[in-house]
């Protein structure tokens, strides 16, 4: 089966510009995650969707970050305006879990490496 697809792979922008990342999860996966991974650290959960609803966005900096998952399939993550500290790899992952059945593993995409200059 096809894996989690993300685009673009790399992006360089100037601070205060905006940027968007796209993720297409594995077909049939109800849960979708976005993570931020800064060099030398573990992935930090930004937002979790189940179908097209938000399960957790407690760590999403909502003044500049937004995410949506229209129709419960693919998803976009946007940063506007970007800051230097947003330089990181943005990972998308998906899993079959839904409802109270979350005993499933997450599959990860290759990520988008964002550099803010």
């Amino acid at each position, binding site marked *: 089966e096809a*894996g989690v697809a993300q685009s673009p792979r790399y992006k360089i922008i100037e601070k205060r510009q905006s940027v968007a990342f796209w993720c297409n999860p594995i077909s049939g996966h109800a*849960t979708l*995650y976005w*993570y931020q991974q800064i060099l*030398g*650290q*573990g*992935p*930090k*959960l930004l937002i*979790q969707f*189940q179908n097209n609803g938000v*399960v*957790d966005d407690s760590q999403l900096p909502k003044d500049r970050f937004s995410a949506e998952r229209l129709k419960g399939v693919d998803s976009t993550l946007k940063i506007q305006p970007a800051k230097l500290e947003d330089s990181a790899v943005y*990972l998308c*992952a998906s*899993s079959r*879990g839904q409802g*109270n059945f*979350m*005993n*499933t*593993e*997450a*599959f*990860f*995409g*290759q*990520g988008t490496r964002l550099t803010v200059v």
Partner: protein
Amino acid sequence: AQSVSQHNHHVILSEAASLELGCNYSYGGTVNLFWYVQYPGQHLQLLLKYFSGDPLVKGIKGFEAEFIKSKFSFNLRKPSVQWSDTAEYFCAANSGNTGKLIFGQGTTLQVKP
């Protein structure tokens, strides 16, 4: 608050040495545990997982992990490492109810040939 912590940030071993990476979690309620690996230039891949049952779980490439509930630990082990095991290793936990998946800070393993 939910959290996952890994004890070792950078480990250097010679080939054939044994490996143990520590992981502790703090989670209320039902918890599922995972170890992921990230080889240089590749995406995160699942090494092994624990949902329930036998607390000793075996994964790919000869890795295993033991869930010790009383210690809130899920340590990763391999009896004899190879140069190809050089990678970054992440312990993760998710809530069995919501699926919120949280990672530790990672351990970089360098195996010298």
